[in-house]
Every structure is written in structure tokens, then in C-alpha cells.
């Protein structure tokens, strides 16, 4: 089959698929919000139930906390898989890094990035954000270190072993809180009601902030490990 013919075939097929999808989705009525079902329930009683102002966080870490546990297991598995695939000799490979100006500037900014990350993590139940988002910001620190100072610096400061411990620690925190829910409240991953304080304060919303912290460290360390595993080859080529 020649190239042009194949291209035409593909485009025709895709156009047909578009048509088919269009005909199916055009039947869908405009969404008016659920008449029945759970969203009304959550909107009305999530604050009372969990003490979390952020309803999405309430859904993620209270009502559907098991999904989040599964999700962090997915990250855990993906990270160990990537490490397994890319595992080479863990030599501290390095590059020269960027210019002096950038290095100094970053040195000043880094604490603020970290602070912002921690803020996003710890205020997950109060404002937009949460463990995943804050964790990604934390991972950015490690990535920026590798780019700007060279990966040897990053390696010395936060070695992959440390990151692994952080990551596993995050996962274990989540599991521990789940088990604590079992012991104190009678159901696995039940929110710890005795930790609840006035809604709107930092340490309110039961166990949600603690889960957020665990997930945040887990995601941050996990993404940093992924990044570190991926860049190794580039540096091997440099030297």
C-alpha cells in the first residue's frame, strides 16, 4: 500500500469515526446537574461531615479515599517500574549547570518554592490544591536543582535512597491513617472525627491534612525519582 493511499484511508476512517461519534454524542442532552444522586448530598453535607471547605478534597480523601489510596499505589508502582526499567549504576553523574547568576537567583527562590509547595499541601482542605498539586511543586525543586546546579548536587542533597524512603513513608502514612480509621472509627479509611476542629482552621477536617501531607511527599519524591531516572542517560552521554 502506498503512502498516499494509506493516508487517505486513515483520514477516511477517522472521518467516519468522527461522524459516528458525532451522531452518538449529539443525542446527549445538555447537562442540568443531577436531579438525584450524590452531588447534592455532598454539597449539602460534606462540610458537616468532614470539616473540609474544599469539597473536592473532601471527596478525594474522605468519601473516595480508597481511590486516592489506589492512585498513590499506581504512582508507587509506576515509580518502581520506571526504576526497574531504567536501573543503571547509580553513579552521581553531573553536568556543569547553568551560569552563576541563575544559580544565585535560584538559591534565593528555592525556599519560597518549597514553602509554596508545603502551603498548597497543608491547605488542601481549605483552598484549591492538595497533596498531588503540592507534591508536583515540591518535585519541581529537585528538577530545577538538577538543571541548574547539575544532578550531582541534587544527588548529594537528596539522594534517590532518601527519596525512596520519603515516597514509601508517604504511602505508609496513608495506610496508617486508613488503619487508624479502622481502629478508632470502625471503618477502614474513615475520617478521624476526634481530630476535627472548627472548619476553616489549619488543623481541621480530621485526618485529611495528614493524608495530604503523606500524599504530597509521596508524589513529590516519586516524580523526582522519575525525573532522576530519566535524565541519567543524557549525562552519561555528556561524559
Amino acid at each position, binding site marked *: 500500500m502506498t503512502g498516499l493511499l494509506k493516508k487517505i484511508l486513515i483520514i477516511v476512517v*477517522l472521518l467516519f*469515526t468522527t461522524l459516528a461519534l458525532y451522531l452518538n454524542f449529539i443525542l446527549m442532552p445538555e447537562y442540568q446537574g443531577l436531579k438525584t444522586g450524590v452531588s447534592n448530598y455532598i454539597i449539602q453535607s460534606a462540610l458537616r461531615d468532614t470539616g473540609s471547605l*474544599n*469539597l*473536592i478534597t473532601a471527596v478525594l480523601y474522605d468519601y473516595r479515599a480508597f481511590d486516592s489510596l489506589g492512585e498513590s499505589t499506581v504512582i508507587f508502582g509506576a515509580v518502581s*517500574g520506571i526504576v526497574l*526499567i531504567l536501573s543503571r549504576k547509580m553513579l552521581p553523574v553531573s553536568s556543569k549547570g547553568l551560569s552563576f547568576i541563575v544559580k544565585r537567583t535560584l538559591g534565593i527562590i528555592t525556599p519560597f518554592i518549597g514553602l509554596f509547595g508545603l502551603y498548597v499541601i497543608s491547605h488542601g482542605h481549605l483552598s484549591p490544591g492538595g497533596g498531588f498539586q503540592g507534591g508536583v511543586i515540591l518535585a519541581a525543586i529537585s528538577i530545577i536543582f538538577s538543571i541548574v546546579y547539575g544532578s550531582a548536587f541534587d544527588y548529594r542533597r537528596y539522594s534517590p535512597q532518601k527519596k525512596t524512603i520519603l515516597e514509601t513513608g508517604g504511602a505508609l502514612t496513608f495506610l496508617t491513617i486508613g488503619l487508624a480509621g479502622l481502629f478508632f472509627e470502625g471503618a477502614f479509611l474513615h475520617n478521624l472525627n476526634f481530630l476535627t476542629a472548627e472548619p476553616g482552621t489549619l488543623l481541621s477536617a480530621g485526618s485529611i491534612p495528614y493524608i495530604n501531607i503523606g500524599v504530597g511527599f509521596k508524589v513529590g519524591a516519586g516524580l523526582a525519582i*522519575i525525573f532522576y531516572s530519566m535524565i541519567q542517560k543524557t549525562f552519561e552521554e555528556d561524559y
Partner: protein
Amino acid sequence: MFNNLIFIILFMLGLYTLIMKKNLIKMVIGLNLMEAAVFLWVIAFSDTGGRISIHKLAETNFNFNDPVPQALTLTGIVIGASTAALLLTLIIELNKFTGTIDRDQIEGLND
């Protein structure tokens, strides 16, 4: 209606990229475009004109958007991110063996 149209267009663009492009990384981008189309559609579709679903203290207005699709989408995004990382890892590894990321030049990807 409009949401659905945008969703279909984005989704088919992703599928087109996935099928047509020879570059493996572009294929990953196509796959992520498909996922992004779904997530965007979910968020846009569930918008019923309410506010973002975060309480303000001492407020009794309950006209929120449904928080559940957003939470589900968040989970989906995380899964998408980890799979994208895994895909890219595999491409790096494949590049190590074959020295290319053009899928037509990688022998044996066809049969």
C-alpha cells in the same frame, strides 16, 4: 452540544496524532491529547453555572458545581501522568537499543 463537539474534535485529533505520526513521542502526545480531551469534556460538561466547589466561611450559598467529576478527573490526571512517564521511559529505553524514535525505523514494531 458545543462541549461535545469540542470533545469529539480534540479526541479525534489525538487519535489522528496517535495513528499518523511516526515519532513515538508524538504518539504519546496524541494519547495524552485524547485523555486531555476527555478530562476537559468532563469538567466543561459538568459545569452547570455554579461556583467552584469550595465553601467560603459563613456563607450559605450552595450553588456549587458538582465536585465529584472534578475529583474523578483529578484521579484520572494522575493516572495519565504516571502512564505518560512510563511510556516515555520505555521510549528512552528503546532509543538506547535502536538509536531512533521513529517507529518505522524500529524493526519489528510492525510484526
